[in-house]
């Protein structure tokens, strides 16, 4: 298919762009296969480049012969284009609509994008499972890397290599896979170096209504327990939801069959409820005419903050079981690809200082989200403005980023990265020139040959100029476990995402610059003092 077929009018002059808190720009609008471009004739004005895939929905309005298109983006920005001429406007609108809803993955921009920067390190090779396993091997010999899923047949959503207990062989794994949702048998998520406890994740056990059991499954997870020790199973669903799952062939681990495990149920909501919550929240944030009462009640009714609190609380619970109770933990919900990953990844941020570094966080996203089979393409197909009926869309990853931001805000000195990295990941998960978030699993990514055909987001991020932008100037390594507060008073609305386009950030930017200035100046003085001292010492030695 040629993109040109979809572009009815490639170019219109005299288009006026309105953006909140920025002066309007008049210029020429161009449509290409992947971009909407607006550039003014003046040299010094900024151009607008918008990926079609970033467009969530559009609205048309007409006043006389002047048409306006309101473009609502997946990154929550809303812009308006005034287009002279009814026909041009309609053409542009229908072109945008067609181009922003392309079905085929292989037509996505990452397959056409050629990097304009020098790739220092190929991000596709930066975080390979075998490298992560080497780190584990240096700490313990109780785990092995299994190739049982090398052709993705045992579990289509798992990567080719997974870490499992050493004493459990591949045949056992195959049997366990038939007993777990989508074949997601329990695998290692995190090893807590401090006390050797582990966190595992899986899909729900397929016990069904008649209480099926699987000896191999019991054997597998018991193999991770120390003699005489108990573990915790954290089921991210309420007991009621878990009970209901039995009717559909799912279920949970019974006490009788898993006597060494205690089960705790939490209440993280399912995908469609989260999507609804996001839509309500964004709607509330975008209506500036609200009175205080209306705003607070809309914020409350969206339930977004409740989800943040529930997810964080569950992650803290998992971390507490591991660090304070000295127990191993198995986390699962239904599929093991959404709430499960929120919990396991946040628990690692709490427990493991390495995950709070820029590289460590990338590695966490790679391990616990991309390779763990979070279906990014389905979940991030549409954002908060979509008019179409949600199918698989849900802000699961955005909620995870929100929770990380909450912890970062409470421990502003313990993270090597700043809020910018979180915002960047949010943007790229929904629309990107990079191939990293394409596909729903490692298997799909392999099939699409993404490493060969697209550029990795990590290749872009891990360059000095970009790293500098993402670094938190307040950072100082903190080797401790950090326990965030989950009290409602401590959890704020993530302004950097939800109010980003609704207020001017000038004063906050100034404050940030001032902060950087104070720290830089201090460093400069430190260096100067040190060199002066060294000089003095040398002179003193010479005198002797």
């Amino acid at each position: 298919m040629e993109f040109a077929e979809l572009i009815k009018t490639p170019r219109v002059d005299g288009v006026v762009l309105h953006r909140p808190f920025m002066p309007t720009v008049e210029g020429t609008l161009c449509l290409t296969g992947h971009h909407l471009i607006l550039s003014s004739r003046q040299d010094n004005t900024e151009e607008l480049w918008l990926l079609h895939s970033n467009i969530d929905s559009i609205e048309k309005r007409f006043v006389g012969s002047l048409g306006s298109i309101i473009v609502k983006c997946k990154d929550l920005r809303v812009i308006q284009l005034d287009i002279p001429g009814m026909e041009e406007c309609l053409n542009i609108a229908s072109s945008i609509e067609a181009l922003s809803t392309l079905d085929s993955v292989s037509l996505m921009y990452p397959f056409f994008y050629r990097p304009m920067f020098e790739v220092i390190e190929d991000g596709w090779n930066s975080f390979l499972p075998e490298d992560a396993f080497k780190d584990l091997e240096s700490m313990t010999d109780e785990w092995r890397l299994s190739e049982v899923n090398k052709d993705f047949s045992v579990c289509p959503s798992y990567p080719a290599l997974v870490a499992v207990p050493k004493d459990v062989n591949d045949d056992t794994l195959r049997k366990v896979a038939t007993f777990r949702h989508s074949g997601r048998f329990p695998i290692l998520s995190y090893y807590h170096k401090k006390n050797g406890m582990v966190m595992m994740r899986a899909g729900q056990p397929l016990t069904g209504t008649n209480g099926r059991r699987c000896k191999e499954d019991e054997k597998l997870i018991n193999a991770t327990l120390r003699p005489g020790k108990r573990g915790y199973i954290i089921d991210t669903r309420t007991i009621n939801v878990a009970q209901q799952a039995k009717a559909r062939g799912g279920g949970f681990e019974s006490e009788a069959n898993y006597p060494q495990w205690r089960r705790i149920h939490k209440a993280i909501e399912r995908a469609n409820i989260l999507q609804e919550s996001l839509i309500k929240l964004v709607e509330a944030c975008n209506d500036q005419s609200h009175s205080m009462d209306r705003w607070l009640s809309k914020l409350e009714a969206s339930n977004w903050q409740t989800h943040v609190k529930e997810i964080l609380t569950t992650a803290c619970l998992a971390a507490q079981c591991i660090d304070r109770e000295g127990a191993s933990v198995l986390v699962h919900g239904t599929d093991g690809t959404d709430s499960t990953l929120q919990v396991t990844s946040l628990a690692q941020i709490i427990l493991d200082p390495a995950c709070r570094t820029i590289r460590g966080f990338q590695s966490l996203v790679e391990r616990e989200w991309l390779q763990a089979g979070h279906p990014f393409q389905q979940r991030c197909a549409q954002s908060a403005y979509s008019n179409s009926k949600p199918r698989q869309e849900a802000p699961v990853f955005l909620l995870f980023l929100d929770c990380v931001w909450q912890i970062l805000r409470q421990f502003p000195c313990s993270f090597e990265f700043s809020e910018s990295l979180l915002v960047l990941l949010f943007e790229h998960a929904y629309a990107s020139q990079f191939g990293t978030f394409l596909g729903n699993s490692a298997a799909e990514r392999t099939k699409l040959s993404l490493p060969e055909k697209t550029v990795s987001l990590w290749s872009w991020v891990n360059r000095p100029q970009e790293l500098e932008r993402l670094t938190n100037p307040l950072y100082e390594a903190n080797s401790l476990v950090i326990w965030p507060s989950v009290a409602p008073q401590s959890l704020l609305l993530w302004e950097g995402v939800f109010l980003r386009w609704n207020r001017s950030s000038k004063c906050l930017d100034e404050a940030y610059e001032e902060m950087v200035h104070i720290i830089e100046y201090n460093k400069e003085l430190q260096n100067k003092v040190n060199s002066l001292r060294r000089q003095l010492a040398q002179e003193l030695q010479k005198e002797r």
Partner: protein
Amino acid sequence: LSHLRASVGTLYLSATHSIFVEDNPETRKETWVLHSMVNSVEMPSNSPAGSQLILRCKDFRVLQILIPQERDCLDIHASLVRLSRPGVFKYSELYCLSFNPNVNKEEREESWSFIDLMSDYRRMGVPNNLWVMTAANSEYRVCDTYPSELFVPKSAAPTIITGSSRFRSRGRFPVLSYFHQDTLAAVCRCSQPLSGFSGRCQEDEMMLQAVMRSNPGSDFIYVVDTRPKLNAMANRAAGKGYENEDHYTNIKLQFIGIENIHVMRSSQQKIIDVGEMRSPSMTDFLWGLENSGWLKHIKAILDAGVFIARAVADEGISVLVHCSDGWDRTTQACSVASLLLDPYYRTIRGLMVLIEKDWISFGHKFSHRYAHLDGDPKEVSPVMDQFLECVWQLSEQFPCAFEFNERFLLTIHTHVYSCQYGTFLGNSQRERKELRLPERTHSVWSQLWKDRVDFRNPLFKADLSQSQRVLRPNTTPYCFKMWKGLYSHIDKSMPPCQSPADFLSAMREESQQLEEEIAALTGRPIVWEKTEVLKRRTTHLQQRHLGPDPPTSYIQPITGHGQAVALKQANQMALNKEPNLYLPTECHSKLKDHDPDDCSTCSDRESGVADLRSRSSSGGDYAKDPDWE
């Protein structure tokens, strides 16, 4: 008590303070509570471990004390009730009259002249050919709640002033609050006119005309009635009300809708309850916040300030502000407007001046509003609390615009209630004179000035406020947050959050020392002693490691299996084991006793940090002294 940390120690009662000293030999942490800061003392039913006392403080801290012997508890209860409640109209029992911070007479007198209002008027350019000082109110003849020195339009003759004052509630006639030199427009204040349904007063009309004429080039003034229109109309039935636009030529009337002191009092009680909720759900919390109406009121006050500031700075139109008596809502609106208009008021000294001018000198009834004496509970209302919160909300939006930090606002808040200094005592300048407060008490301003290092905002950019003189805040509802520093004490049982501000302050201080050292090194005197300085200050910087302390239990909501129960039992066991006295950590004292000898041990902020310092991981790069020695 359940999820708060408790500690064991000894409780001492002195004539002025309750002092709790922890038994823990390492910290011996002390918590000081001034009796006058105690709002109520409750004695709920006995628990098996002993008798309980609950102290609720005026800065919204809550202390729970468990005392093993019931008799002791009864005694302490009786003493505290007496000590925290001075009799009706007995100023003599107030702490400020016995408080003696170890300074001599000259220093005390100096403390009272630290803030000089006349020099502030000179700073804003009055008197001039538009505004002059009037002697009309010397000896408080015209209005006993106004100060004796007032500025009025040059064209306002004494007869106009007295005539106008007779037509205004409590004789509070229109006077100058702030003069904006850039536009020559002014912010003026008064009380409501006694117009009823049809009353008018020629002198008052001339007075408003004079206000307009003092702003050359303008042909009208705004009259801002800060009350909801309905309230203002209701006042007409009582022979009061608002200006009739038909009688006054060239005024534009604007209602803002700030609620009265009774609404505010009950609203604040509700937000205090929100702050005290034990493990609320997000819904409970947000619903409570909405239901309290508190942020709505804060927004209304800020909106009033924004309206006035815009009229003065952008339109160049003078504004006359009033409410009913002109000492609560008017004070809030005028002072917020001044803060937005003039960068000087955003400095440490400037805020003191602003409070001294708009609040203290213009007769805001401190003793009534903040219950310094056992008076009419209907007179009590958090008017000043709201102003301080407006400042805080602004400082969140403009992090570089204020020289002071949140701590400064909280300290002022404490002293508005504490009665430790005479500054906020009494209801008017006249009352303070009669009480001879300057001779018998100390002023808080010079003390705060001495401590100013603690109150500095490291991000303050003085040059910025020159280029950006007028603040234009966004007052969309989502820009307002609950002021955790004042209302949420529950959270302090959690590990204290890392504070970038404290860290940056320490870094600024360090940079200054480094600058000195560089000067010394290049000037090449002896440098050996300097290295020690470096080591010492690293401890400051470690504040940013504030790592974890005990995790709170995240598992409360679980039903069924195990864990929660186990932890609760553990708590219970800890409770039973330690027989003495429990104090949740949330209540570490914000009160700083200003006796310098005691300061070292009881200042809470540092102690919260100190015990973490010992746990924090490493000193970081800053601890690495060059090891050439």
